[in-house]
């Protein structure tokens, strides 16, 4: 092979280097610029900082859609004993009043309209004065139309999840996975990943994947982590959660 030192004679003709040089006005090749001069750092940061902004701020905003729920729902009000709300010995019991198990052990998830009308059965008599309540009666109860709720916690189709195994047999609290959803007066905006269609609550609110609470994320690893912690490694078999 040729000795590189010998062959490195300066040349200004040809090659992609000169092409690049041509692009940059006033370029003087003879000026020696130390690799990390101040301006070097500035340019480095000029690339780095916008990239960080794009990756950490703009990208997450662009990645998730925002959809409002069809109407508001006030969990606090429904659980308020002062206004005849749902009572129960435990929080879980209160939740289960509406988010109940069927006889075959399956879980209803978000209750159907029929569950609402068990209590709010008269379309003629308004519940209160809010716009939501008026909407609820006019749009849904009167036409017997199901409310198209957007589910924050619906796992993708490939996932099987048994609530009864966790809540009844495993005696887990609802909030372990769902957080303090029952303490909200307003339903948060539903946000879904535009590529995957997953709710942000499933895939983690934190874009970096960092988890502060048990309910911040409901990914496979989170399930497995809990199973392992509780000594139920056998439930990490693929088919326990995949279908």
């Amino acid at each position, binding site marked *: 092979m040729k000795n*590189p030192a010998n062959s*490195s004679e300066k040349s200004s003709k040809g*090659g992609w*280097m000169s092409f690049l040089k041509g692009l940059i006005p006033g370029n003087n090749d003879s000026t020696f610029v130390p690799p990390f001069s101040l301006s070097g750092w500035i340019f480095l940061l000029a690339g780095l900082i916008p990239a960080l902004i794009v990756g950490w701020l703009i990208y997450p905003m662009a990645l998730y859609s925002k959809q409002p729920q069809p109407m508001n729902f006030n969990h606090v009000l429904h659980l308020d004993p002062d206004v005849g709300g749902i009572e129960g010995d435990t929080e879980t019991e209160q939740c289960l009043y509406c988010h109940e198990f069927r006889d075959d052990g399956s879980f209803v998830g978000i209750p159907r309209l029929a569950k609402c009308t068990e209590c709010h059965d008269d379309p003629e008599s308004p519940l209160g004065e809010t716009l939501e309540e008026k909407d609820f009666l006019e749009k849904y109860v009167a036409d017997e139309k199901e409310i198209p709720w957007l589910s924050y916690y619906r796992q993708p189709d490939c996932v099987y999840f048994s609530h009864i195994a966790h809540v009844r047999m495993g005696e887990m609290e609802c909030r372990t996975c769902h957080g303090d959803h029952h303490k909200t007066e307003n339903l948060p905006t539903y946000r879904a990943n535009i590529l995957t269609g997953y709710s942000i609550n499933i895939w983690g609110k934190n874009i970096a994947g960092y988890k502060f609470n048990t309910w911040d994320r409901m990914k496979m690893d989170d399930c497995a982590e809990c199973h392992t912690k509780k000594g139920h490694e056998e439930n990490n078999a693929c088919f326990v959660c995949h279908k």
Partner: protein
Amino acid sequence: MDSPLLPEGVKRCSTKAFFLWTLPWLGLLAWGGLSAFLCLWKGLNQTNMSNIFAFALWIVFDLAVIALGAGAFFTGFLTYIIGKKELKNVINAAVIIGFICYSGAIAMLGIDIGQPIRGWFIFWHANIHSMLVEVSFCITCYLMVLAIEFVPIILGNRQLSKIRELNIFGHNLHETMAVFAATGTFLSFFHQGSLGGMFGVLYARPFAARDGFFIWPWTFFLFILSAIAAGPCFTILCTKLTEKLSRKKLVPDNAIQLLAKISAFLLSLYMVLKIADTLGWIYGVVPRAGLKFIDFYQEGPYGVWLVVCEIIIFGIAPAIILLVPKARQHDGWLIAACLMTCMGIVLNRFVFIVVTLAIPVMPFDRFWGYLPTWQEWGIAMAVIGYGFLLFSAAYRYLPLFPKERELNPVTE
């Protein structure tokens, strides 16, 4: 037109001639591009692969080119680790051939899997028991090594070498080549073996399974050995082809002869072991599964001729030719022997893949046939086109054969 890019002091054909030369290979690439697009867009239904022929033409091509590309790591090993200096005259060519083969194989694999976008699951959710995982890790890493080995050659281009930083970088890289050669050797040994293991471990496929004799599966070693025997032959073939096409002597005879001699010994050793393997299989694996040797060679086109070709015509015969110094010094015999060796290895890979799958294991099951579609051929041919193109370009623009100037002094 492109003269500033050509290496100094050597003669190359005109730009026009070179352009015409690239046309057929560009054509193959275009065919492959269309095929790849169809396969990625519409799915693998574009092929004639099936639940029976789950692996087919592409995997045969993959395994074949990876085996033939073994010349790269093995020549590297001989050059940098063993210190056979004369091989420096072919090492560049060997590296490029290796790079072509491995990158081509990986590209084909990317199309061959049903869910290319999830391909990285192999690395992320790796099943350490799977030989294919070992193969994937090794060939990916080795392709990186090859790329690194390729860089100094690229930087040897007349114009690039004018850039001081690149020149220094290339030189330094070159100095450390022994380290990469060692890494490459390690990686390559493993994946060549794992490729053999891939089939040897199929314990429910008696045609491919190789077990019951200390080490399981022993195809691991057979594949390594056959690859390092055939790799140098392929390197010889490529250089000889380049010499013939350019009507120039490019590599000193001693380098070629050394490769041929090493190949001869390895091939002979391989043949001894292959015959032992075949016998061990016939008298061990096969009857254990309740079958006879001949049961595997009665279906469709797959007859005993496969064994005869693989072991005698494309195995023992070239081994003898290469062992005899007189014979291997004769260009015609040398090329013929190298060609036979390479065909033997391709046949071996074909048999392990296609025949393994074609022969039904359930006694009441039947034999199915398979012919590749034009889309499958397209992808396979594109690898060939890509190989020719890259190698031709490398020969034209890079200092591929260090002795070229010396052997062909430019008279004008």
